[in-house]
């Protein structure tokens, strides 16, 4: 609703003075303090909110993982019960995927992407805030289970029917753990889709002059691909969840075997979402790596078009390989063969990226800063994960590996060695831009080595466990299976990894308060966001940049005179338009999201009348949101913000 001018119809004059407004629509203007965060529409603040929530849930998920590893440290362990163990692995996966890695990627999309394309905000700033609050509502619902009698969801993050049906997931009357899982994921889906629609419009429509698509930084490209993957794949799981919810709440038959239901259908719908989801998790990290490697190699990305097109190819093929998660479901020879070959095909664009990253290093001057260490760690670990992925693509070999610890090893190499390393690299890389301080190289590298070693000690032995026949999701194992040593080593590794993560965050927190202050562009980087002061002002760019080349900021640095002249001209033009236009803050995204949260909680408890009340709050929130209009005010660079309400 916000982007279009809310101009008066012909005949009515624009309003010079601030009009009288009802108290309901008085826009909050606080720039600091709690209200500024609750009502923010600033993509940087929203990015920060995403980041902090994601890191919190990253620690929660990590804690769950440690409990899992303690239980498996020795055979026949009684540290936690089967039931608790099942809750742990369900919530560990759900948390890490939906509440840690995806929102952490969203944090970078929010904070960095608009800066990279030279925009002052996203296309729909209030909708952006709404996406975050809805995310938080979903996260709360997913985790309510820990605090109520039902317990946390325990049907696995993949929720295979019919284990999730009333008959098998209702140990006692009113057990709502599975309902919480269904509702939580649906709400997170809403958040992801809304956020992604916003990013798509932003990247396509809000680029600075001269920022053609083939000049977009690779991170922005990966944001775009991820956003498309999200809007096209989340509907599949949302509908699957709706069907499951109908089964559980309204006695329909979708996955009821007695009524002819096909539980295999759930698997298809789940993995049509689930496989693109894998790329939703990895593409942002690949984007970050593609920013860091050129910066610290001090030369442009090798084969930019190929990197971009391979990203697109991965995204596209990602929709055609879902059944490789189902090689053991008896699909028949033709389907198995087809999905095997498709899966091998997807290894090509992935491999191409690795070749091009190495090409980027080749002939450069590599500066081994901490972000670069994480980036190189990413390349190595992702390569490992990629190779075990190729092993899975061979369906006959996969018949032994599927649902064994070999798979656990594989996807942790891709998701920790890949996604998480990429995101941790990104935090180090952009920390100076966001907070104006730099992490000490010693502590940064120490945390890198602890994480790198801990990670490998944890997950490398799991390849052996899987090939030695240890199935996943098993709360106990016997001591005579030959799995004892590898499990113990793995648990020790998990603690090294945990120490590494603690050091990483402790260093970050210390740096936030006491780190070495940096000036503009501390890494001598190549993309536009580094042309900004640290931290960037609310309106990002005093003068919207004009882009003349890929690696736009590098060009600016090598053509300073030309750029200075251009800036002066543009500044004058912008001033004549009344200054820099910024969107107003708003309470209603939060208001609507709270309605959604209330409605969802009552729905899960099967209190449908009350749920309608929550829905009504949501609708009212949206109504007020539309009625208050986009609003806006102008920033004048002399520091005098001029609020002129709805009209301008």
């Amino acid at each position, binding site marked *: 609703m916000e982007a279009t001018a809310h101009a008066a119809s012909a005949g009515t004059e624009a309003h010079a003075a601030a009009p009288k407004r009802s108290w309901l629509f008085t826009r909050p203007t606080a720039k600091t303090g709690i209200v500024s965060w609750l009502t923010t529409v600033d993509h940087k603040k929203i990015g920060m909110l995403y980041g902090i929530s994601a890191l919190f849930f990253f620690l929660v998920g990590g804690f769950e993982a440690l409990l899992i590893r303690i239980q498996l440290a020795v055979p*026949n*362990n*009684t540290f936690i019960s*089967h*039931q608790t163990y*099942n809750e742990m692995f369900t919530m560990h996966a759900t948390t890490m995927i939906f509440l840690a890695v995806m929102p952490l990627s969203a944090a970078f999309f929010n904070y960095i992407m608009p800066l990279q394309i030279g925009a002052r905000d996203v296309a729909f700033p209030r909708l952006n805030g709404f996406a975050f609050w809805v995310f938080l509502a979903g996260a709360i619902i997913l985790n309510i289970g820990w605090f109520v009698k039902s317990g946390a969801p325990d049907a696995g993050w993949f929720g*295979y029917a*019919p*284990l999730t049906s009333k008959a098998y997931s209702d*140990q006692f009357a009113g057990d709502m753990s599975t309902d919480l899982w269904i509702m939580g994921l649906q709400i997170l889906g809403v958040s992801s889709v809304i956020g992604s629609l916003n990013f798509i419009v932003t990247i396509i429509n809000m680029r600075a002059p001269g920022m053609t698509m083939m000049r977009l930084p690779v991170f922005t490209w990966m944001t775009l691909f991820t956003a498309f993957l999200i809007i096209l794949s989340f509907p599949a799981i949302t509908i699957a969840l709706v069907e499951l919810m109908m089964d559980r709440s309204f006695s329909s038959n979708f996955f009821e*075997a007695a009524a002819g239901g*096909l*539980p*295999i259908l759930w698997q298809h719908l789940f993995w049509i979402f689930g496989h693109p989801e894998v790329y939703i998790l990895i593409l942002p990290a690949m984007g970050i790596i593609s920013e860091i490697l050129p910066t610290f190699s001090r*030369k*442009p990305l090798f084969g*930019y*078009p190929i990197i971009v097109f391979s990203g697109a190819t991965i995204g596209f093929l990602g929709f055609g390989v879902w059944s490789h998660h189902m090689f*053991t*479901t*008896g699909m*028949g*020879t033709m389907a*198995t063969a087809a999905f*095997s*070959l498709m899966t091998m095909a997807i290894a*090509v664009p992935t*491999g*191409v990226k690795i*070749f*091009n990253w*190495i*090409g980027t*290093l*080749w*002939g450069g*001057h*590599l*500066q081994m800063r901490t972000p670069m260490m994480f980036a190189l760690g990413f390349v190595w670990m992702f390569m490992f994960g990629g*190779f075990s992925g*190729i*092993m899975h693509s*061979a369906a*006959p*070999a996969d*018949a*032994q*590996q*599927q*649902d064994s610890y070999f798979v656990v090893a594989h996807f942790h190499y891709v998701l920790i060695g890949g996604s998480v390393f990429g995101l941790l690299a990104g935090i180090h890389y952009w920390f100076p831009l966001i907070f104006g301080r730099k992490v000490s190289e010693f502590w940064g590298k120490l945390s890198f080595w602890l994480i790198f070693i801990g990670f490998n000690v944890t997950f490398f032995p799991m390849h052996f466990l899987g*090939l*030695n*026949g240890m*199935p996943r*999701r098993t709360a106990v194992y016997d*001591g*005579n*299976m*030959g799995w004892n*040593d590898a499990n113990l080593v793995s648990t020790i590794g998990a603690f090294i990894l945990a120490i590494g993560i603690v050091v990483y965050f402790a260093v970050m927190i210390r740096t936030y308060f006491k780190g070495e202050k940096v000036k503009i562009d501390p890494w001598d980087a190549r993309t536009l966001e580094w042309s900004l002061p640290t931290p960037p002002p609310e309106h990002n760019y005093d003068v919207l940049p004009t882009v003349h080349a890929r690696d736009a900021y590098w060009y600016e640095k090598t053509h300073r005179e030309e750029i200075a002249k251009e800036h002066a001209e543009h500044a004058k033009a912008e001033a004549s338009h009344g200054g820099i236009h910024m969107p107003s803050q708003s309470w209603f995204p939060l208001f609507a999201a709270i309605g959604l949260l209330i409605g969802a909680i009552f729905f899960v408890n099967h209190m449908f009348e009350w749920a309608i009340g929550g829905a009504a709050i949501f609708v009212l929130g949206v109504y007020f949101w539309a009625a208050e209009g986009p609003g806006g005010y102008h920033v004048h660079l002399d520091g005098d913000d001029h609020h002129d309400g709805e009209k301008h």
Partner: protein
Amino acid sequence: MPLFFGGWLNWLSGPQSTFDVAGPVAKSQLDVFYVTLWVTGIIFVIVASVLTYATLKYKARNAADEHAPTPPQGHGNPLVELSLIAASVLALVFIAVPTLKAIWYNYDVPAAEKQTALEITSTAYQWWFKFEYPSEQIDGAGPLVTANELVIPAGRAISINLRTVDVIHSFWVPKLAGKVDMIPNRGNHLWLKADKPGYFWGQCAEYCGEDHAVMRFRVIALDAKDYAAWLAHQKAPARSVTADDGKPGATYTAYTYTNPGRNAPGYTAAFDADPLGSWFKWQKPEADEDPVLIAKGRKLFQEKTCIGCHAVRGQEGVGVSGPDLTHIGSRTTIAAGLLENSKFNLHRWLTDPNGVKPGNKMWTTGYNSDGKTVFRIDDEEARALVAYLHSLK
């Protein structure tokens, strides 16, 4: 370091190892795995060397390197990029061809062996496996049924129909064949063959609820003669021992029982040393059995309503929702492959099922069916039931 690498090889030799294969299906799967391992291994060595070289050679070593003028700003080399793409595609062809061959080979029993193949239907329950032999019909009782221990003839192709009565499970005996899922409303099947007689560990490989971790089973392959003898014995009704048969064996109940606690191991090194040999020992009646105690146990088996869920063909047991116990005494394991079938373990299972397998159906629909009162079996009753069940050879 060598010790460390040596250790890894030990990590691949367990009873569920996918390397120590014992049949053609597992073998073909292992061969495909080796192909993928070689191809990816070679690519890895090449790529990793180039990456290491690039990192070491171009790394800034000192302040002078750090502040050196920027290197040439090259944007890539299409020829290099395209040839690398072509090379990757070529490498994948090496994997694709054996993969396709093995997909067809593993799918069904080869045509030449179709005639001689033995058909078995395996049905999964939360949390145990039922095995039926459709070709072995028993008058008035349908096909031969057994539970949790599948006995097959070695050297013969076995075609297994995979069914489930509740949620999704997966049938996996790593040394014989990769897994295939058992899915409601879906008629899956797999085939396997054991080259030689042997004792194989299997386990459910798809998460199926609270006790997924302890849903295990065994496959015992016998030579043709032993298999025929086993079959004849299994098709006979349950062995009946009455109080008048022979003299009481005074030593029979001379074991002490204290509950070893949750998740306590149920296996022994003596058994693991020669599992197949142990299996043969299990087939013969115990020398010191106590007919009086057995008769008491048989009565308790009725009184405690065990007969409602468990069948003992030829005797009182008629239920079908639990494992068939007609020849339970001849099985090496109880509680779905979790515990060795010793007096101590059977005693433990009967007196504390929820401690052995939390939330199992014998507990939730039998011992604690209303969720409040718990039906107990005391020490003396347990000893009688153990004597009875172990007499069912």
